[in-house]
């Protein structure tokens, strides 16, 4: 504490150094063109440091030299100069400035700045694009709305994990999650995988903590994409910053003394797309009907054959006597279609804002109940927020926010599956390829005596998906508090000092509950399983900074900020895993026989971590005649995860913004070029590693083995991870240039950004040949470069009294390259033999996996003696998940009180490894494999091992099953080009005159839908896979291991304010 006191004193010394001379006092009132007072307008005496701002009534008082020139500015208005001829200056009108020119955006540290002054790209998303939507995850809602923000989700279930990447992934193994700043304070938006299974196998089943934000309480979101924008936040901002201003934290003043808004939404939540299943063939193999996993059986007949019922078997005869000797009809049952339900999303929001002379107060409460289309899946949220400001004295303003979020998420297990069941449990694992002749929904799914799973396989080896949905459940509940306290003291006109304290803390419990009686997952799961984990996270942010604004002369204005920020981040968790359930149905650790403190995969459930960082920063912005801006910034950071010599780093930034339309007289009042801005910036940043990678420890393991006599064996050894005390931060540098403009009477708007980012000294979890004694270490090696283009184009097609039609197009494309790696390749996400790789000269993240052997001479693919693909012993590059480009088109059409909005997203290219397509094709269950199956076939354009053309015939089912689906990874790669109607909405607002005599201020109703249609044209026609759902989160991309369908939502909202 003492050291922070020092800092405060230091700042004060620096800042209190002004003297005030004998002068006259002038007063005036600043009004807009409608005569409404403008509060907070700056009034400065030109050539001196004297200045003030207007109060709530637009009135100011200032001591100036007689005859001084006063410069009056207010964000959004044109600047005006007035000469202080007399003490009473009367009303001073300001005219509304050029909108595009004077757009105000929230930048680092929550500072509002005019967009024209910025030398970097900022995307903003307004509340109207976020509220009253059928989705409670702000991440999902941001998709496509800000150029350069790329969002993927793990599945279509309610509460699924979201992955947000700003621009492109530029680190191989570091985090790519952007920094979330809510009301100026650091907010943890990541997802916890406390069972130690980050990402791949179990990762689909946890939610992102970003979910704790309430979309209905968001005033605006600014996305700071480049490093220039975020240097003040230091290394945490290297992946971009998502600056969220909540309504309750925005200190917004309502139009009247008090305003209450109530909204209610109701949306239907359905499966967006399922495969077109065949109605021609049924379960079996080799055209013979049977109870196979696959659908390569006999063709259905008009009068169905009947076969012995699968439940007429010895093991079930006693408990299901009604099935003894029974037959079932061999015909198509719509098992998968009927498995899903129609979910419902209900959202209720109440907002209130009020203000007094020196105070504002805002509050919001939202309850959301999102019932998924998957049985037993739901997300429930309670969000309560409050915020207010009080001007305690003329100099001192205090403000604060208080947010409480209780989030409750539940889903059946949806771990990864490679096409047949799932080692980690998945309701989808055996569902999606259900043979057509299996009546999943019509036959019992649990043993009436034991409650265990029963299904059609004679050995009962497949767990019934209905049983899974009911008995293998993941739960996650969190209680979160985040809020801040701010104090701003205006030492003198133009100079203020602010202190902010932010706290973001939550406790989260996760549980996996599996009743006994299942059949998948081996001994770990089938006798009943219960794993609970309780984690606590705390982020404390202290931020002290001073801002000084002054006019150096009539042409130059200077704005500087200096400050210090410290972030302390703690996380700890404890957990228990129990197996062998005693009584079916009860989940309490005492109802289980065996208890353990490690996860299924052996990782510790008990874990703690502390990371701290500290930074000193400064920024100066010099303005010349409203047309040229120079911004200089620098930060010195210290980070606790590295050894002393490597833990501190200095990084500078510089950016320039130039407005020809303000500088060149001829352009000033042009109707063709209304505004033009050219900007350029260069900045650097760093990426520090996660903790505990520099020092050795003893890899101890208790209870590693229990011998026949019951002796417990504990082990200890040198960890297989080799620590590296010399590890340094990754260094990022980025050059960014851009043009912004509005043309032709502001009908056409343009925002173009080009950037080139280089990240060198990548911190790599380098895999080692185990012959070294270690299988992994951490090193600095390799460089990733990213180049990109982000373009936003807007055009107003029609603009008149009743009609308004605007089109907006957002385009982005990125190209990455890896270089300077010392090894042939590094697989950094996925499995060791199937994952995303970094390879010199290739884009980051190419997919490597097993490949078909190529003939040396012809380069053609080689088949083995059976006509199946011959697999190369080495894994190869088999795909590139990076899309060629992404395009979003938004159309907003309004007529009087009606408004119709549509958003289309298009992704060109990018490969996806699809487990779903693979399983469906291999098992012959969709219309894609409806061809005449009696005709043998062979792989065309292939050669035999001796190099001669392939002519080895095989039955279609052998070829699909043994050589396409589960055989070689290369065959499961598909081009993920995708067109989607992401959103459409129609809203109607009651005209104000209709409401005049009612207590209501505004009433509106909106009908809207999300994910209404999509098509991935390069997938087999009948798979209908949504390539946007993928298994791998984090830095992994381009993998889908049967993650299930995505969600389509539509419904209506009504909002009333009074």
């Amino acid at each position, binding site marked *: 504490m003492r*050291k922070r006191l020092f800092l405060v004193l230091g700042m004060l010394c620096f800042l209190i150094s002004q003297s005030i001379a004998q002068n006259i006092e002038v007063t005036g009132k600043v009004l807009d063109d409608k005569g409404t007072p403008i509060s907070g307008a700056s009034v400065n005496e030109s050539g001196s440091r004297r200045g003030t701002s207007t109060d709530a009534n637009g009135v100011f008082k200032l001591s100036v030299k007689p005859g001084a020139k006063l410069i009056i500015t207010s964000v959004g208005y044109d600047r005006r100069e007035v000469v202080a001829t007399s003490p009473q200056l009367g009303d001073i009108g300001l005219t509304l400035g050029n909108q595009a020119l004077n757009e105000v955006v929230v930048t680092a540290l929550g500072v509002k700045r005019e967009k024209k002054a910025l030398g970097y790209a900022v995307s903003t998303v307004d509340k109207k694009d976020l509220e009253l939507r059928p989705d409670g995850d702000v991440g999902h809602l941001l998709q496509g709305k800000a150029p350069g923000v790329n969002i993927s989700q793990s599945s279509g279930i309610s509460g699924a994990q979201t992955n947000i990447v700003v621009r492109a992934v530029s680190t191989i193994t570091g985090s790519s999650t952007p920094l979330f700043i809510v009301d100026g304070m650091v907010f943890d938006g990541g997802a916890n995988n406390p069972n130690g299974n980050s990402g791949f196998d179990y990762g689909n089943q946890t939610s992102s903590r970003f979910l704790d934000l309430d979309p209905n309480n968001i005033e605006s979101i600014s996305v700071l994409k480049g490093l220039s924008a975020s240097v003040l936040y230091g290394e945490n901002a290297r992946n971009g910053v998502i600056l969220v201003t909540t309504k309750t934290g925005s200190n917004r003043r309502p139009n009247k003394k008090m305003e209450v808004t109530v909204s209610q939404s109701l949306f239907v939540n359905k499966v967006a797309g399922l495969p077109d299943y065949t109605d021609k063939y049924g379960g079996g193999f080799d055209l013979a009907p049977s109870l196979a996993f696959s659908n390569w059986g006999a063709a259905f007949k008009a009068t169905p054959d009947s076969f012995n019922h699968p439940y007429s078997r010895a093991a079930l005869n006693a408990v299901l006597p009604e099935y003894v000797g029974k037959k079932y009809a061999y015909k198509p049952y719509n098992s998968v279609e009927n498995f899903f339900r129609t979910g419902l999303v209900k959202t209720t929001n109440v907002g209130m804002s009020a203000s007094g002379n020196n105070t504002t107060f805002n509050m919001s409460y939202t309850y959301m109940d999102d019932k998924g289309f998957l049985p037993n899946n739901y997300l429930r949220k309670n969000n309560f927020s409050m915020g207010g400001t009080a001007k305690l004295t003329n100099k001192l303003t205090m403000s604060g926010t208080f947010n409480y979020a209780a989030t409750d998420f539940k889903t059946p297990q949806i771990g990864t599956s490679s096409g047949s069941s799932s080692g980690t449990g998945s309701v989808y694992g055996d569902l999606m390829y259900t043979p057509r002749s299996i009546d999943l929904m019509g036959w019992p799914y649990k043993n009436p005596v034991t409650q265990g799973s029963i299904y059609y396989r004679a050995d009962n080896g497949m767990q019934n998906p209905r049983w899974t949905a009911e008995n293998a459940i993941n739960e996650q509940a969190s209680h979160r508090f985040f809020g801040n306290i701010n104090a701003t003291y205006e030492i003198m006109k133009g100079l203020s000092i602010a202190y902010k304290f932010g706290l973001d803390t939550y406790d989260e419990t996760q549980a996996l509950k599996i009743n006994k009686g299942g059949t998948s997952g081996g001994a770990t799961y089938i006798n009943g399983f219960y794993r609970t984990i309780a984690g606590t996270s705390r982020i404390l942010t202290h931020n002290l900074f001073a801002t000084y604004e002054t006019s150096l002369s009539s042409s130059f204005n200077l704005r500087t900020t200096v400050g210090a920020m410290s972030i302390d981040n703690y996380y700890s968790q404890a957990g228990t895993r129990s197996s062998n359930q005693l009584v079916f149905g009860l989940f309490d650790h005492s109802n289980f026989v065996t208890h353990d403190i490690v996860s299924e995969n052996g990782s510790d459930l008990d874990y703690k971590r502390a990371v701290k960082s500290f930074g000193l920063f400064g920024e100066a912005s010099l303005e010349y005649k409203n047309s040229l801006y120079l911004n200089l910034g620098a930060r010195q950071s210290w980070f606790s995860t590295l050894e002393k010599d490597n833990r501190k780093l200095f990084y500078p930034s510089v950016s320039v913004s130039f407005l020809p339309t303000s500088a060149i007289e001829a352009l000033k009042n042009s109707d063709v070029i209304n505004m033009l801005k050219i900007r350029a910036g260069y900045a650097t940043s760093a990426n520090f590693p996660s903790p505990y990678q520099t020092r050795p420890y003893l890899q101890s393991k208790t209870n590693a083995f229990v011998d026949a006599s019951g002796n417990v064996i504990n082990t200890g050894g040198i960890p297989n991870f080799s620590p590296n005390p010399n590890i340094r931060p990754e260094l990022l540098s980025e050059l960014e240039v851009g043009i912004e403009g509005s043309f032709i009477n502001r009908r056409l708007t343009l925002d173009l950004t080009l950037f080139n980012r280089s990240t060198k000294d990548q911190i790599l979890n380098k895999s080692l040949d185990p012959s070294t004694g270690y299988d992994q270490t951490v090193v600095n090696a390799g460089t990733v470069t990213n180049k990109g283009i982000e373009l936003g184009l807007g055009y107003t097609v029609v603009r008149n009294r009743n009609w308004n039609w605007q089109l907006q197009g957002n385009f982005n494309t990125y190209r990455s390259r890896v270089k300077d790696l010392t090894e042939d390749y590094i697989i950094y996400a996925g499995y060791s033999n199937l994952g995303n790789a970094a390879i010199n000269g290739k884009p980051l993240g190419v997919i490597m996996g097993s490949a078909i052997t190529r003939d040396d001479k012809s380069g053609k693919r080689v088949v083995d003696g059976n006509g199946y693909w011959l697999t190369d012993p080495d894994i190869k590059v088999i795909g590139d998940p990076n899309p060629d480009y992404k395009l979003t088109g938004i159309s907003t059409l309004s007529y009087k009180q009606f408004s119709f909005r549509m958003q289309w997203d298009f992704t060109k290219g990018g490969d996806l490894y699809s487990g779903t397509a693979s399983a469906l094709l291999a098992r012959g269950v969709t219309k894609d494999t409806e061809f005449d199956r009696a005709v043998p076939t062979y792989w065309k354009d292939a050669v035999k091992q001796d190099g001669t053309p392939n002519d080895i015939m095989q039955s279609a089912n052998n070829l699909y099953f043994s050589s396409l689906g589960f055989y070689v990874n290369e065959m499961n790669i598909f081009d993920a080009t995708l067109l989607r109607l992401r959103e459409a909405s129609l809203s109607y607002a009651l005209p104000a005159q209709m409401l005049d005599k009612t207590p209501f201020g505004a009433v509106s109703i909106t009908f809207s839908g999300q994910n209404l249609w999509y098509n991935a044209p390069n997938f087999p026609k009948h798979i209908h896979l949504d390539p946007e759902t993928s298994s791998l989160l984090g830095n992994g991309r381009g993998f889908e291991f049967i993650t299930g369908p995505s969600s389509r939502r539509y419904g209506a909202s009504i909002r009333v304010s009074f």
Partner: protein
Amino acid sequence: MKYFIIGALIAITASSCVKEYDGLLENPNYPSLSSADPDLYLNDVQLGFKDFYSDASDQGALLTRQETLFGITYYNAFTPSSFDNEWSKAYTAVFKSTDAMIGPATEAGLTTHLGITKTLKAYTMITLVDYFGNIPYSEALKGAENTTPALDDAATVYATAIALLDEAITDFATAPKKAPANDLFYAGNRTKWTTAAKTIKLKALMSTRLVDATAKDKIAALITENDLIDTEAEDFTFKFGTRAVSPDSRHPKFASDYTGAGAGNTMGTYLMWSLYAEKSMIDPRIRFYLYRQSLDIVAALPNVVDRQFTVPCLFRNSPYAAGVPHCMVGKAYLGRDHGNGEGSPPDGLLRTVFGVYPAAGAFDADQGKNRADATVANGRGAGIFPIWMSSFTEFLKAEAALTLGTTGNVNTLVESGIRKSFAKVFGFATAVGVPVPEAFAPSQDTQDDYVDIVTNSLTAATTADAKLNIVMKEYYLAAFGNGIETFNNYRRTGKPSNMQPMLDASNAGSFIRSFFYPAAVANLNPNVSQKTTTTVKVFWDNNPDNFIN
């Protein structure tokens, strides 16, 4: 001046703020390395060795038809990544913890700790060479100092391993200042460990007999010294427990066959045929080795469509020459043919599974029931890894007598080997608490009959090669549960000579003479280039190409 003061204040603040960062560098989740203790290292070596053996034995068992090799070609039968785990266990657990322990254990006079870890390390080195040929050794285990260790000559590694066994023998000769807290093999008995170390030496020397002219004298010396594993008490086995979870301490074959709805392993048709049909009598060990879930598969599947799907091979013609087993053995010994690449049929409740020896499953007393049936008693997984059994020594001596002319009567040695195998196997059911009904306990007459059949055929065999074939067949049968010895024996002697060929023999390619290097090695270490074929022979194998199938 004021700027200077401010600067100084900021510097002081910053430095005091970040001073506490030093305390955040130590991982709070683990003890520090200085708290390591030799007992913990020893346990790490023992369990790492168990895991190494498990993978290696499985691979050998699949190739020598104890279990079924899935896959159509030898080339694609094992992907390089399937060796990652065993390689990692060898180097990062067995080798690394052995080396880490040597200093502190030597200082503390823990000779038994030293001897055990050296013995296990030597066995692991020998097996790695047997499987892969040249391996990194002299440049290995150096961590960041050398991330690309070069390969050492396989023969040199073998010699180093043998020298390490000698070191271990010397260590065992000195009484330790403190016995190990846990010895999962011999409960700290140094005499037995000495015998084991010498026997592993014998095994290694026998492997090299084809290429090393000096091996014969060394083998003869060991036989003469006669301190070899030749009693049941000396058997070198890893002993499993019965704990199913937290942690799963059961025999892995039990764990995969006896949990879940269906059996996890598939037995080799050839092995079952060898036990059931090859001789004029059924091998008395068959009910101990194998458990049938049904006594009559055809009767259990009266519906032809069901049968066709569950046991498709019943409807296919044998691609093999007459006399080679195909599909099913007898009415109920259901496994799979060597190299069958079809998808798994739903036969998990019908196929034959591991019995009471060595996995501690069920004894086959004609129950004809699902092995998980509550009325079928099993040994709860407290099985053993038969790493070296007293019977093996006898067969090896017989091979030495036949091929090298060392002392000993082949007939007597083989008889002794069979009887030792019988004793171990028959006694094992009781040892793990599985009752053997009187009617099914092999009588002395049965055992004698079996011995007579083998010794008679030995006597009848006219050539040393024919005799060796009989020796190696009996060795093969006694070695059930150990795929390492059968794989080595097959490559060294080409026996047993009647192994069932690959199902699609014409396209299967040649038998694997050494494995691909693990993916983790070949991909990450530029000094190890991947083999282009799996027909590369290891240094002690000078047999002709294609001499085995």
